[in-house]
């Protein structure tokens, strides 16, 4: 009994280790303190919208990578100096490129990215509209006299089965 418990405990520890694997050290955002709560919220919001270039599916706020920690510190330092959000973004874009932004800026090379989806919805809508128009334009085919009689017969027969 005791042994099983120990085994479980060790397994648990190993699993916890596996989850924590790959992290150099745990970090929290608590080391970054601001006197003004609005500024703190701005900081969190800002680093949440910046990409960590090492682990590209993580934001600067969420990444454990060393470079992400350095950049968090840099962003914090700039904000403590009273720099605006735009200053920080410009600083990072000048060094790492637009790729640090999760939301790409609108410029000639990204027009397709921003408006492509609307273009496709437009094309789809146009095709749908055209097809419907064509359907409407086609004259409805009336039944011939023979078909009409046959239809009446069939309907009458169906009626017979109703109790």
């Amino acid at each position, binding site marked *: 009994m005791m042994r099983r418990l120990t085994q479980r405990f060790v397994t648990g520890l190993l699993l916890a280790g596996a989850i924590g694997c790959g992290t150099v050290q745990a970090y929290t955002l608590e080391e970054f303190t601001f006197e003004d709560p609005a500024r703190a919220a701005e900081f969190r919001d800002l680093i949440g919208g910046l990409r960590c*270039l*090492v682990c*590209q599916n993580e934001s600067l706020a969420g990444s454990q990578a*060393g*470079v992400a920690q*350095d*950049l968090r510190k*840099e962003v914090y330092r700039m904000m403590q100096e009273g720099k605006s959000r735009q200053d920080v973004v410009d600083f990072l*874009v*000048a*060094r*790492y*490129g*637009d*790729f640090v932004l999760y939301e790409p800026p609108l410029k000639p090379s990204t027009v397709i990215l921003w408006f492509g989806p609307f273009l496709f919805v437009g094309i789809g809508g146009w095709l749908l509209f055209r097809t419907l128009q064509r359907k409407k334009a086609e004259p409805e085919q009336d039944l011939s006299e023979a078909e009409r009689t046959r239809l009446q017969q069939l309907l009458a027969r169906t009626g017979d089965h109703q109790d």
Partner: protein
Amino acid sequence: MKTSATRALIPLGIFLALAALLFYGLQLDPRKVPSPLIDKPAPDFALPSLKDPGQTITQDILKGKISLVNVWASWCPSCRQEHAELMRIARDNDVQVIGFNWKDNRADGLKMLQQFGDPYLVSLYDPDNQAGIDWGVYGAPETFVVDQEGIIRHKRIGPIDRAVWESEILPVIEQLQ
């Protein structure tokens, strides 16, 4: 009215275009982020030398000669992998190879150079990623080709081997000479 045969080919055409686009996308490596610093002057820096803490090195070292600025660290396996090729490049070519020891500690960095040789004219020592951020460094190894006027002309992300040197870096250098 189009014939139904041509109409039937439209979905195939759309499919092929999409397949070509996606296939092209597969060839791209999202880890290789283009640097906005290309064709811009190398960022200013003032860093101590790895070997001589008392000596401060600035961007002036990049003037007058074509330089390879190689970001490396002792903790980085790919840096060891490219080390022999850097030794060869420094020996056989008329470029100065500048080391950029990044997020490392002095003792480990020096030990690596002692063990595998030192291809660098000098190594900058940047343990806290001070200048690294200005250079847009986000991993090691990275290598910048800087021209005689101190302007960054190329950035290689990842290790350099003989093939990369010949197909990617040497042509840039030959154009600058």
